[in-house]
């Protein structure tokens, strides 16, 4: 009876809401509120945080040694990010090419595998790489000593590993959207495959190449948690900030420079990117024909696969080895029972997932109207385009710098609990991911479909419920999963905005680092760290599975 009444009530409520949505005042209020929330909670706090404590920069300026350390750390950040993004593109493009152009049925498996480092929480990834490259039991057991000791080289390997899937994903999408006819036209005009790719395909895909470089660059610049594990004595910007938590001067100095420089780099790329010409226009028909041979193509594919398996995939999953060992040494029952350190661990996991869920829901609620404003140019072409640029800023700002400036801003509000601060920080960091995913999905839907709905009598909310939502629900789900995984992995900002122990913070700061300093006095054993990472990895795989199922639903749809 109650269910029947609820069913009858549902269309009535929907009808009433639909009716409300056609009132311009209501519609505009929703849009204005979402814009105000964006400025008040996401964009302005980090900027104001830096401005508030601007004076403390003198602390650094007056200490030449500290300043030189800070500048060196910033330079190291940019050097690593540039180098890693460059090799990511060089290695990632052939991989994307192979996935999209190859004919083997195994390529869809390869496609899924290439996502793994993206889905593995970076703290787990850091430990996994450490085990594989440096610790006994990994490559070191083959070569006798620490094969790659913690330091700049391991940082580069780590950053390459986690940003590689970003390049592959962007380029796979671009290649699938690419109109093959351009390349075919070039071939019919006499161009060898290599010439056609070099002179036609890549110049047309220039925007995607730049986008993949930029995203890899931003991801490298931001990463903190995993880098802490593998950095050794190497210090880059985020680690410098982490080392000086509680000191306003170094925090503001490095954050301000990181934010300013990364913004400058991205604005430059945005402005100059479209004008960038591919370096060599001259054609060498004979040589390029030889380089297009099937032998060369097979060798290229072989090298690409080797790099992927040896440098990306196996190191990413290597943590599974101690995790399995732990299962057979009795650690598992302790872990599942929450005995000792495991009580803290499960608490941190609960906290991470709680924050992840809250942040995801907030993103959906406040992000949807913003995505529609951007996609449908609701506030005019110019202002909507400006908003489009502004919502992307948190992606390009290193998360640790963002966290530091947010912490400074919110410490003025004494009533602010730590958990809320953490949620705000994660909201700032993840907001662009949801907006990008949703606004792109809405943009793909022809305006005519919306207009058709309106001419058939649907109110604006009705159009959203019956046309936009069914057509974008899979993108919304993908965006939400991306937000969720990013939030669960986040370490840098989390470390500086609060003392709360999320799972990656617990693993990086309280388990791995003490263990590396002194395994005997550390609160955990190697097996326990392995199992802790293994649980996170298993949960991430479950999420990947959901993502895959959702995507499959989209294809069916």
């Amino acid at each position, binding site marked *: 009876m109650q269910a029947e009444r609820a069913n009858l009530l549902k269309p009535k409520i929907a009808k009433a809401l639909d009716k409300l949505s056609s009132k311009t005042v209501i519609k505009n209020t929703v849009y204005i509120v979402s814009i105000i929330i964006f400025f008040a909670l996401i964009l302005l706090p980090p900027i104001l945080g830096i401005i508030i404590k601007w004076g403390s920069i003198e602390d650094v300026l007056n200490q030449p040694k500290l300043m030189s350390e800070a500048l060196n750390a910033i330079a190291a950040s940019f050097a690593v990010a540039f180098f890693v993004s460059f090799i990511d593109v060089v290695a990632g493009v052939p991989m994307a090419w192979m996935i999209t152009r190859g004919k083997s049925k195994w390529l869809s498996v390869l496609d899924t595998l290439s996502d793994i480092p993206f889905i593995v929480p970076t703290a787990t990834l850091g430990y996994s790489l450490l085990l594989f490259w440096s610790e006994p039991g990994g490559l070191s057991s083959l070569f006798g000593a620490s094969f790659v000791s913690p330091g700049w080289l391991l940082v580069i390997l780590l950053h390459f590993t986690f940003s590689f899937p970003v390049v592959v994903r962007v380029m796979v999408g671009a290649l699938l959207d690419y109109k093959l006819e351009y390349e075919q036209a070039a071939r019919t*005009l*006499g*161009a060898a495959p290599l010439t056609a790719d070099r002179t036609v395909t890549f110049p047309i895909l220039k925007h995607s190449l730049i986008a993949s470089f930029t995203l890899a660059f931003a991801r490298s610049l931001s990463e903190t948690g995993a880098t802490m594990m593998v950095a050794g004595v190497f210090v880059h910007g985020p680690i410098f900030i982490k080392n000086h938590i509680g000191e306003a001067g170094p925090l503001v100095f490095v954050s301000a420079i990181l934010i300013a420089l990364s913004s400058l780099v991205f604005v430059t790329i945005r402005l100059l990117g479209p004008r960038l010409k591919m370096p060599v226009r001259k054609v060498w028909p*004979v040589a390029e024909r030889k380089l297009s041979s099937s032998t060369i193509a097979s060798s290229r594919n072989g090298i690409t696969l080797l790099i992927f398996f040896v440098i990306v995939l196996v190191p990413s999953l290597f943590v599974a080895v101690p995790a399995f060992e732990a299962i057979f040494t009795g650690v598992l029952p302790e872990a599942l029972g929450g005995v000792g350190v495991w009580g803290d661990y499960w608490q941190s996991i609960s906290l991470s997932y709680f924050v992840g869920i809250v942040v995801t829901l907030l993103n959906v609620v406040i992000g949807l109207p913003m995505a529609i404003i951007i996609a449908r140019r609701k506030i005019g072409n110019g202002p909507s385009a400006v908003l489009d640029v502004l919502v992307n800023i948190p992606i390009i700002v290193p998360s640790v710098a963002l966290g530091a400036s947010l912490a400074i801003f919110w410490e003025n509000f004494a009533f602010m609990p730590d958990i809320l601060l953490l949620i705000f920080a994660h909201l700032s960091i993840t907001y662009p991911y949801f907006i990008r995913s949703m606004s792109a999905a809405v943009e793909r839907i022809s305006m005519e479909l919306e207009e058709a709905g309106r001419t058939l009598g649907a109110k604006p909310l009705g159009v959203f419920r019956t046309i936009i939502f069914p057509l974008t629900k899979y993108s919304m789900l993908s965006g939400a999963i991306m937000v969720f995984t990013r939030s669960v992995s986040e370490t840098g900002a989390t470390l500086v905005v609060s003392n709360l122990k999320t799972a990656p913070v617990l693993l990086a700061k309280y388990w791995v680092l003490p263990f590396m300093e002194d395994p005997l006095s550390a609160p955990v054993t190697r097996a326990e760290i392995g199992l802790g990472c293994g649980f996170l990895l298993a949960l991430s795989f479950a999420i990947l599975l959901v993502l895959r199922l959702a995507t499959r639903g989209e294809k069916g749809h």
Partner: protein
Amino acid sequence: MPDVRLVNVTKRYGKIVAVDGVNVHIYDKEYFSLLGPSGCGKTTLLRLIAGLVQPDEGEVYIGDRLVNDVPPEDRDIGFVFQTFALFPHMNSWNNVTYGPRVKGFDMKKAETIGHEVLDMVRLHERLDAYPNELSGGMMQRIAVARALAAGSKLLLLDEPLGQLDAKVRNELRYEIRRMTKDLELTAIHVTHDQAEAMAISDRIAVIKKGKILQVGTPKELYMTPKSIFIAHFIGESNFLEGYVSNLSRRGATIELRGGIKVHVEVPKNMEKGDRAILAIRPETFVIEKGIKKNKNSIVGIVERITFEGTNIRYEIRLRNEDSVVVIRPSLVEEWLKVGEKVTMSFSPENTHIFAYPEAGLREELAVE
């Protein structure tokens, strides 16, 4: 010399047979059209010739050379795509000279060729324009110029006029034919527009469901269609159902539904009692007011009149409830009126007789 031969060529996509055992010989310097409804396999056939797809069976020859394993860049062809596929990051000049550049011609020669072909398509003044700054007609001409500049004697055109307005399309189709004839090229032109194919082709191959049904000059296809589908697809035909009621050396009598009898030439491969389809072109009827007792005549009532400019089109309901279309010149005769009784006569020479198709008439005429 670039004549093209396809021998038993088959191409499958999974379970779908896109091209089914095609045999055809396209002569040197010929303007040849592949004509058929959407999805009939005509574009696949062109792509097989270009090397953009590989045949599952059969052989493709360009000149005397078997090209099955030759990549597109080595087939010495020019290809005009339906969407033009002009490189969006290059201006008109760089698009046009792309072929000579990638083939390794020296710059001077590439430039000479570029100027020649741009002269030919009369687009010299838009050298610096990018594709998004050109109209549909201009893009089409640049696409043709680019294909010509590659210097090949074989030009493949995949529905090159499909994206253009009717007026521009009509102008450009003659222009393309003129250029190919001036340059003595072999041209293979894919289209679903029978009027376009009839207007420009030396010969046409009509394709349905991956098979070539008939190859011939436009006149041959129109005057002597070998199947009901061709009679339907090339031009327009009235189809009247009946059976062979009498057969002699001098001719045959077909009895249409409702007992209407008509006398026609002796049909091939048909016997007395066989079901038959009579195909009569709408413009071959002689139409008179009132009921007349002419030989080979049918009587009906004018049901609808459509003024089409040059012609006037009458839809006439017969006594047996079949409908017939008659087309007459609009300006030389007095128009009939709706509801008027008329007699339509036709000569046996202008009538085609076909055996009733096994799959049924509707299926036989289906274009999709």
